[in-house]
């Protein structure tokens, strides 16, 4: 789609574009290309000069057991958070979509956690599940569960998953609700007249028609888990215990900051960029074409 009626100033459009282009070039393209450049170089022992080492950073990255472990953590984390947050939100959205009294009140009461910062969400969940003073943490211990996210990696991962999923409920709920409201009611009524019960109507009509929303949310949730959960992890577990909650982004941060291994950290950044670009490309392709009804 293009405009028919245009202005033909020569200089003005460049001036209008300049601020965004300058900021994008300085804070986006320059650092991104630096990351790519650094990923092919290695610092010498004193950290004063760097030399070209080809793919060495990548090779050593993919030889690290810790990198695969971090990748596995990220995958488990993504699947768990995405599944939990999406299924619970879908249930709530389906309920809120029914013509019930107070529907908009429920909506208001369900959407505000979107505004809670991930790091704060982490702090809140830590406060509840802290084993010695947390309300739920103590409760678990008192019924005989040896709960300790500070020492047990599985517990730590579970806690981070719960906090991350909690934070994402409102977002998914809003999009599912919008998706549900766009499905023509006549279609569902027709099925009802044909004698299809509500559960059957949901799985044969509503759920397939929601597939663009579901697919969109799937990608958004995965991207959220990859990048926005940094604050949650840093607040609750700091990547521990024994790296049990160290996701790929957290590892980039840790390796670059503490390890000082800038080449290795840059190689990790580049791998992450490739993953995000792939995810976004998949989203554009499929949302546009495949997932239709």
């Amino acid at each position, binding site marked *: *789609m293009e405009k*028919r*009626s*245009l*202005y*033909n100033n020569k200089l*003005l*459009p*460049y001036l*209008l*574009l300049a601020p*965004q*282009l300058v*900021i*994008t070039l*300085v*804070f*986006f393209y*320059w*650092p*991104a290309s*630096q990351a790519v450049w650094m990923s092919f170089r290695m610092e010498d022992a004193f950290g004063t000069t760097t030399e070209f080492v080809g793919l060495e950073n990548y090779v050593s990255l993919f030889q690290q057991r810790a990198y695969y472990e971090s990748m596995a953590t990220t995958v488990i984390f993504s699947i768990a958070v995405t599944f939990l947050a999406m299924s619970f939100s879908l*249930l709530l959205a389906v*309920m*809120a979509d029914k013509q*019930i009294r*107070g529907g908009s009140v*429920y909506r*208001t009461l*369900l959407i505000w956690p979107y*505004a*809670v*910062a991930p*790091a704060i969400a982490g*702090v*809140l969940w830590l*406060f*509840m599940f802290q084993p*010695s*003073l947390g*309300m739920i943490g103590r409760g678990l211990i008192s019924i005989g569960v040896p709960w300790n996210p500070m020492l047990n990696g599985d517990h730590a991962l579970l806690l981070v998953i719960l906090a991350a999923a*909690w934070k994402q*409920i409102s977002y998914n709920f*809003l*999009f599912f609700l919008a998706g549900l409201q766009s499905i023509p009611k006549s279609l*569902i*009524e027709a099925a*009802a007249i044909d004698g299809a019960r509500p559960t059957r109507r949901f799985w044969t009509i509503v759920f397939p028609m929601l597939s663009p929303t579901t697919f969109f949310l799937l990608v*958004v949730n995965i991207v959220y888990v990859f*990048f926005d959960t940094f*604050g949650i992890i*840093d*607040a609750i577990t700091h990547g521990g215990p024994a790296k049990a909650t160290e996701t790929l982004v957290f590892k*980039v941060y840790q390796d670059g900051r503490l390890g000082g291994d800038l080449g290795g950290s*840059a190689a990790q*950044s580049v791998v*992450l960029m490739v993953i*995000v*670009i792939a995810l*976004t490309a998949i989203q554009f392709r499929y949302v546009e074409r495949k997932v239709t009804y």
Partner: protein
Amino acid sequence: MVERKHWFSTLLPHAILILGVLIVAFPVYVAFVGSSWDAGTIANGTMPMTPGPYLVENYSRVILSGNATAREPVGPMLFNSFVMAMIIALGKIAISIISAYAVVYFRFPLRKTAFWLIFITLMLPVEVRIYPTYKIVADLGLLDTYGGLAIPLIASATATLLFRQFFMTIPDELVEASKIDGAGPWKFFKDTVLPLSITTVAALFVIQFIYGWNQYLWPLLITTREDMQTIVIGIKKMLVTQDALTEWQLAMATAVLAMLPPVVVVLVMQKLFVRGLVETEK
């Protein structure tokens, strides 16, 4: 609906939605209760489910004097978060609305290139290029400044795409009418495009304000001086590794204060918020 409703089928949605609301609200309620008790009650795990008597004391302590682990009181941190969120929200809107205007209403060499240069940034969050970006900000001498906190996060394509999409829906007749009146592109922008865009601007503002306020990793790296810290970072610093030393009641009071501004924005401007969220993610 054509079916007769059973009492159970009208009750069930309410039951599930109430359960959902409780799950969503519970962690925040516990934080609020935590912010109204003393350190002792919390530390020995006997905190009840109802607010205690230390509410005023805890909040006045965090606002006025800070605590042992984070010496800055909360006031300046709230101010830093506010400034950062405002620069990000307004900055993004300002640079995107004019760049979208250029892309839509002008034809010039390299127009497509410029559009793609901006569009690609949609995909890459600051987290993946964190250290190189840090280095550039450091080289520019922007560490511990509001500019360093906010400007790198302004570079994003979302807003530009949204404005472009909106400008496409403005009828061509308006441009033609404006031209017949002898008005140039700047006057058309100021008198027609900008007033028409107000709702989009407001919706975008709500989303970007929350986005800016809730930033964590970037301010964590960029701020070294305590007086430049944002509130979200401040809370994290109140949690001491040896849990016995954490003053939970103050951390929780700070958490409540940190959540308040963005939550109020969402609740008060709910319509704009929903609209902004749905539109920016399209």
